[in-house]
């Protein structure tokens, strides 16, 4: 295993006129490529089919979210965060709202926190389902995609019933929630839990013991826990490498300390372990949801926050465990209605950095598998 610090930048200048003479070729994958999950461009340096190294070219989806934040009020910026990791919009919103709440020194009431947890965990399942479908599709199994999308639909239906939107939900407000849980919310969520449990088994039935799946994922894209930490890789990727670290446990936020759940970890840090970890995480999320639904307290859903938000001068860093890893917000306030600086610490962006290390000496086909297993969303990488 190469030390991540010694990874040298690629020499991409050598022209490749012929295959045979050069022995190495530089191939460009993306930005319009079906397996790069959006507009990621990867420049691969190959020896035959073996990857000597690669370089990611990102920024095709750069919208300047951080700049926009400086020109909006705290409330106005809230919907923008949904557009970063658009498959886990609820998590983004949770992180932002909690960061601003911290800056304002308010705390959302318990009822709001429970509903937040339910929606966030539902969103985690949805995100993992989308990941599973597309990842399996990248490896060539086309069927799981339809299974997962069928079941993800149920989650989106709950979101739609709750706040009217399916994808970019803008579900939370600074200080709590805008909407009370609709009638039958609890029944819907409980129904979903019992509906999706056998479905997760169904996905596993298709893949977990499938021989080709094992061959394609075992020992592919291995990264050790040490390298993960050095590269700042978080989330399921870190846990699959054997580091039992989850912000929900390590530094609980949003009443996560009230729930019992395990943090699944892997051993080998390969693609298969990451798959297993994410499957287990879906089950753990269901556990959390079930506990939360049972115990939703009565009470207000909105804390007392001023109509015009002017947080005191200061700065705060708050991070949550998004489906993809540590999602952090670093907000600097200058006492005005607009944040002076909002820095988003995007898990996909940092995790993507590990792609080079994970792909070295693997085959081209594995690059696809590893991109899939990192579970990146380009909206978040580029912001």
């Amino acid at each position, binding site marked *: 295993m190469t030390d991540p610090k010694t990874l040298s*930048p690629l020499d991409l200048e050598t022209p490749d006129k012929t295959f045979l003479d050069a022995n190495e070729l530089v191939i460009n994958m993306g930005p319009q490529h079906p397996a790069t999950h959006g507009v990621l461009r990867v420049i691969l340096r190959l020896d035959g089919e073996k990857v000597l190294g690669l370089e990611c070219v990102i920024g095709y989806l750069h919208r300047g979210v951080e700049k926009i934040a400086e020109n909006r009020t705290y409330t106005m910026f809230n919907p923008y965060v949904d557009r970063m990791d658009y498959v886990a919009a609820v998590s983004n919103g949770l992180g932002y709202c909690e960061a601003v709440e911290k800056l304002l020194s308010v705390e959302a009431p318990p009822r709001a926190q429970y509903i937040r947890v339910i929606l966030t965990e539902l969103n985690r399942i949805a995100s993992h389902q989308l990941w599973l479908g597309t990842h399996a599709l990248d490896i060539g199994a086309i069927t799981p995609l339809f299974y997962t999308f069928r079941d993800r639909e149920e989650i989106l239906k709950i979101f739609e019933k709750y706040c009217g939107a399916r994808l970019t939900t803008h579900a939370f407000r600074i200080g709590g929630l805008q909407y009370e849980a609709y009638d039958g919310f609890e029944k819907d969520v409980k129904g979903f839990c019992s509906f999706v449990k056998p479905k997760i088994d169904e996905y596993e039935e298709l893949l977990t013991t499938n021989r080709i799946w094992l061959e394609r994922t075992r020992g592919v894209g291995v990264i050790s826990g040490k*390298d993960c930490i*050095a590269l*700042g890789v978080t989330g399921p990727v870190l846990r699959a490498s054997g580091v039992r*670290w989850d912000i929900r446990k390590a530094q609980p936020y949003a009443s996560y300390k009230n729930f019992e759940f395990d943090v699944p970890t892997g051993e080998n840090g390969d693609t298969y372990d990451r798959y297993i970890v994410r499957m287990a995480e879906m089950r753990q999320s269901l556990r959390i949801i079930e506990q939360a639904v049972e115990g939703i307290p009565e009470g207000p859903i909105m804390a007392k926050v001023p109509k015009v938000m002017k947080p005191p001068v200061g*700065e*705060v*860093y708050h991070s949550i465990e998004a489906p993809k890893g540590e999602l952090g917000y670093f907000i600097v306030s200058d006492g005005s209605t607009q944040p002076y600086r909002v820095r988003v610490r995007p898990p996909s962006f*940092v995790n993507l950095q590990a792609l080079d290390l994970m792909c070295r000496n693997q085959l081209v086909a594995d690059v696809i598998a590893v991109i899939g297993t990192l579970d990146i969303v380009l909206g978040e990488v580029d912001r």
Partner: protein
Amino acid sequence: MVAKYKREYGSGINALTYLGQNYLEVDRSLIPEILQLLRDDEKFDYCVDLTAVHYPNREKQFDVVWVLYSFPRNERIRVKTQIADGESLPSSVPLWATCNWLEREVYDMFGIKFDGHPDLKRILLPEGWKGFPLRKDYGILQQDNEWVQINLGIESGQ
């Protein structure tokens, strides 16, 4: 820990807490040493984030902020330093490999150079773009018209 460093480095270091979050204000000259110590002695083995804030009215225009986390201690700390426009910082890539892209992003957005970075170039914006968008003097509608016209073949990206 802070007291120890305080003794050693005197006024170059300043430990503060705001909203329960600890941060160190460190003088630019002490940055390499302090970061090295934090990583090796204090076991802040995970660099969560590296970013900057622009204060155009100050003499030292930029705050550069490292957000560090220690797995053994389960503790976060922020390290802040002030530098002037045009001043450069030593790269932290040898300490935390993750700083590679993070430093590139800071360079991309603020134009802060990091010495010893293996491949310091723009990351989110295209090569050849002029200007650093997250500086306060860069308007939200501003863009590098010349670049857009040459590379995209359109009058304006607005």
